[in-house]
């Protein structure tokens, strides 16, 4: 059992408030990913849980024990650092043993644990090497190994893959996913890479400027972002946001008049009146080429052909840039104007201050059934 709960946790650096009264529940065996733009407080939050940073306010509990004042070493959490933080003058085995020696564990038990971790991570042949003599991926594994041998209740990862190259990153990402399946531990993972977030998380926490914007499963965030910040942050290329005015309220949702045409969005019109300014959000992958005169008129500026996909970068009437993702054989040329159609159930609607309007049940149907 290892559940972590944050209650109104806050952090001040001098006069600067880095974290604003955050509440968060992490359940046993859950894989929670913290995402957000640089400087939003991801690392700070993680380090407070680890005990590396004092807590300015609120309470952190681990299995219902308040751990605010428990020193880092005693919390039963292990951390994998971005730059690994391996002890450079110790071999891999010594790196792993260090923490166990510090608590006076018997030599045999230490060796047993190292051997076990090494076989789990397939790093047996690295054990006698120093970090200097290892590749980035190997160091990463040793760093994880150092965490594993301590048999922690909670694993903390602070952007553990960001120093690796793209190919290795994918591979290590999958390894961490497998590790999570195998180990009986809770994991809290910081990243700014939203693919990592989407693929690893049971639950994603989107932070912005020290506050939680939204917590949910990857698909919840993708399909029902609570505001334009989350909508823009989750999904790549990011969701197109187009300003418009409410033209009609229909049983299926809201019709919006945009500078380049009218769009129907399957969203609840709660509080809206005709003529109100609103923002329409449409993901590039939900756009398609429609019939002439239909949907949005987009002036094509750049066409990128990626093989099975074609990315179209264009603008609409008021100059807003939009990105459209079409299939690999789409016939589009630079300079032409193409009609872009969007299914009403794929659209999102936001108020001018960015709050999402609830999508209709029709729009959500089937999305979370996987």
């Amino acid at each position: 059992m290892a559940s972590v709960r944050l209650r109104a946790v806050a952090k001040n650096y001098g006069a600067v408030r880095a974290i604003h009264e955050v509440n968060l529940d992490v359940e046993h065996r859950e894989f929670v990913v913290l995402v957000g733009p640089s400087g939003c407080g991801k690392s700070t939050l993680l380090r407070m849980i680890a005990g590396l940073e004092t807590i300015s306010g609120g309470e952190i509990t681990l299995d219902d024990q308040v751990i605010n004042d428990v020193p880092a070493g005693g919390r039963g959490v292990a951390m994998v650092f971005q730059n690994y933080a391996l002890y450079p003058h110790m071999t891999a085995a010594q790196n792993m043993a260090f923490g166990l020696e510090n608590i006076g564990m018997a030599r045999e038990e230490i060796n047993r644990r190292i051997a076990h971790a090494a076989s789990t991570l397939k790093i047996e042949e690295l054990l006698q090497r120093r970090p200097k003599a290892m590749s980035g991926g190997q160091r990463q594994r040793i760093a994880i190994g150092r965490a594993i041998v301590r048999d922690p209740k909670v694993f903390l990862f602070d952007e553990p893959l960001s120093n690796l190259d793209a190919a290795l990153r994918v591979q290590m990402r999958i390894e961490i996913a497998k590790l999570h399946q195998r180990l009986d531990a809770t994991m809290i993972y910081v990243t700014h890479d939203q693919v990592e977030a989407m693929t690893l998380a049971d639950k994603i926490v989107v932070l912005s400027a020290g506050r939680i914007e939204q917590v949910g499963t990857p698909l919840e965030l993708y399909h029902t972002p609570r505001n334009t910040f989350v909508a823009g942050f989750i999904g790549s290329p990011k969701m197109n946001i187009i300003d418009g005015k409410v033209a009609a309220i229909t049983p299926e949702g809201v019709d919006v008049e945009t500078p380049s045409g009218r769009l129907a969005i399957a969203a609840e019109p709660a509080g809206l009146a005709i003529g109100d300014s609103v923002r329409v959000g449409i993901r590039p992958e939900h756009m398609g080429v429609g019939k002439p005169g239909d949907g949005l008129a987009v002036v094509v500026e750049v066409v990128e052909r990626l093989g099975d996909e074609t990315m179209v970068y264009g603008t609409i009437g008021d100059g807003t840039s939009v990105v459209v993702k079409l299939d690999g054989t789409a016939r589009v040329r630079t300079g032409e104007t193409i009609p872009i159609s969007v299914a009403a159930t794929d659209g999102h609607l936001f108020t001018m201050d960015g709050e999402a309007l609830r999508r209709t049940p029709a729009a959500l149907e089937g999305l979370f059934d996987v």
Partner: protein
Amino acid sequence: MVRLRDGLSALAFLAPFLVFYLLFLVYPFGLGIWISFHDWELVGSFREWIGLWNYEDMFADPQFWRAVRNTLTFAAMTVPVMVGLALLLALGLNRQTRIHGALRAIFFTSNVLSVTVVTLIWIMVLSPDRGLIAQLFRSLGLEPIAFLASTTWAMPAIVATTVWWGIGFPMILFLAGLQQIPGELYEAARLDNASPWRRFTRITLPALRRTFVLVAILQVIGQLQIFGQVLIMTGGGPSQSTRSLVQTIYETGFADWQLGYASAMSLFLFVVMFVASMAQLYIARQED
């Protein structure tokens, strides 16, 4: 073609330095070896080739060996104190606050004073009737010690002066070394339950090994060249107990006029220093 052009421009860039280097370092070094095979006097024109006689004389000269012994003793007393204290200071002052910065500046500032000023200060500090320490002794009801007049205390007094003068540089070297240790290592160690002492012995010290070797080499080389402090503070006394090798070289060459003999001694010094630094480098290499 390209190589030739590069060669010429390299020559143009190097020439100014090479002129100085060859003229004022390489040539004198060679000349020193040449002189050491002569009975070569400072004044007048007397220069007679005597082969290895200066060296034979040197190895049989008790004065010379006394100076070597004093010099080695001095280095053996100074270097460990210097290295140890510098490390302690660096550890204690490794924080980026105003007060720590000010303290660092205090320890470093004496480093920029010249040897004459430093010795002037310390002659006064150590003076048995008017010195600072004497005042302290008297206030404690003790009889002040005439440090520089005592064969027992003169050397330690010079060591103290030297440490006071020179601590800043090794301290900064250690600080630079400390600051290159990633903070995450200490965080990892904290999560690993390491006590402060273990953090020090298992993380800090190993990480400082290179700095250690560097500081030690620089100190050994520097302290073997001790001259000004001795010349000014004790003149080698009392009764030769602090006469250093460089001082002997100076006096042999410039007071006794025997440049040939002095050259032989300075080449001996060169060899000692060369061997000392090579040995330390070798030890450092071994541990890698």
